[in-house]
């Protein structure tokens, strides 16, 4: 089996599964340790609160599993809060530690903005990356979030979006990548990016 979507008790994963299927890729939603260890690629979804997501992972021992699989070079895609979880910490509720696969933190949008950031916004490709193959510069994707990632190392940023601030909406470092928007709700553009992820080379050199 190609892609496993990690089921750790948060959110609706059905759409992600069906979106992969629409691209011709077999993806399964699973909370089975063995399945997740054998999958060729992993998707880490996430909705709602960062801390609740992190707790959900920890309760199932999936925090360790994800770190281990990422260090083995397994292509990993974090989606929405799943992308945020890849970082060191989030300032939601004071401070909550994340998976620490990417250096940096997760911050709340400025108070004078309408939050959550909901709707279609553009992805500006700051550098070429496999995920963008066949995706136009400035393509619209669907976002729903109140917090955004601030990587310490700007080299991991491959796509940026403007909402009061220009922030990292697509990140990648080796086999680990993340998207802040919902590819499963971003029509053709999102499906294309899922397809690009599902055909990424292992060890994902860019």
């Amino acid at each position, binding site marked *: 089996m190609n892609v496993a979507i990690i089921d750790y008790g948060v959110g609706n994963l059905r759409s992600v599964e*069906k979106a992969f299927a629409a691209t011709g890729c077999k993806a399964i939603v699973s909370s089975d340790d063995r399945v997740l260890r054998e999958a060729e690629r992993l998707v880490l979804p996430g909705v709602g609160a960062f801390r609740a997501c992190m707790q959900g992972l920890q309760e199932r021992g999936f925090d360790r599993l994800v770190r281990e699989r990422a260090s083995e070079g397994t292509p990993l895609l974090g989606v929405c809060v799943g992308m945020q979880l890849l970082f060191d910490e989030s300032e939601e509720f004071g401070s909550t530690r994340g998976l620490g696969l990417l250096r940096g933190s997760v911050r709340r949008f400025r108070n004078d903005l309408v939050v959550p950031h909901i709707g279609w916004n553009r992805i500006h490709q700051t550098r070429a990356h496999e995920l963008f193959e066949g995706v136009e510069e400035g393509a*619209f994707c669907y976002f729903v979030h109140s917090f955004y990632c601030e990587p310490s190392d700007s080299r991991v940023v491959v796509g940026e979006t403007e909402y009061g601030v220009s922030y990292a909406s697509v990140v990648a470092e080796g086999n680990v990548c993340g998207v802040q928007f*919902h590819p499963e709700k971003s029509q053709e553009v999102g499906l294309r990016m899922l397809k690009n992820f599902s055909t990424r080379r292992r060890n994902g050199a860019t």
Partner: protein
Amino acid sequence: MLAKRIIPCLDVDNGRVVKGIRFVSLTDAGDPVAQAKRYDQEGADELTFLDITASSDRRDIVAGLVRRVADEVFIPFTVGGGLRSVEDIRAILRAGADKITLNTAAVEDPELIKACAETFGSQCVVVAIDARRLDQGWEVYTHGGRRPANLDAIDWSMRAEQLGAGEILLTSMDCDGTRNGYDIELTRAVSDAVRIPVIASGGAGKVEHFYDALTAGGANAVLAASLFHFGELSIGDVKSYLRSRGLEVR
């Protein structure tokens, strides 16, 4: 820049669309999946399904509809109408809806907003407010606009935000169905009172109305039902007009 959203609303009864576009190409205009796909092709940014099913197994019927739409249409969609408990909502979200709207149930039990926000996240909780103009301000109505709730619409929108609503779907009962334009004053008053997105609804009759709601009204999104339903305007018409006036649309 964040694009302004255009959201068509479809009424569904017993799993069938009873009010949606009369697309000539559709062999079955009552099929929610066919309707959703066509709206998607037309450039709809999201879809809203308003369920009016009055049967005892409505939850299963709606969940079935949601599942079929979610499996084939990859844009966000919201389901509202008759949802009363966390369990109702869980079933709909599990089936694949992105958001739900709460109206009467939230007025009767405001803590339901909080419970949903804590359980599923604010991003999927839309509080729908039906408001009617008074001499001073606007009053909230429930039960499909039949019953006054003795609540001020501005106060209620702020309360909903505090309880964890992620968006407000604001319908002007005075303007709804008139085609004379959205209630700009009401939309502006609520947009100024809250810091969450406001979806304006009720009264769209021509492209300028959408522009006014998104600019003078301060709305982040606009919803329309009958205008699209009768095919007088397409979503493409609305978007090209908004673009020509300098607004960002997808």
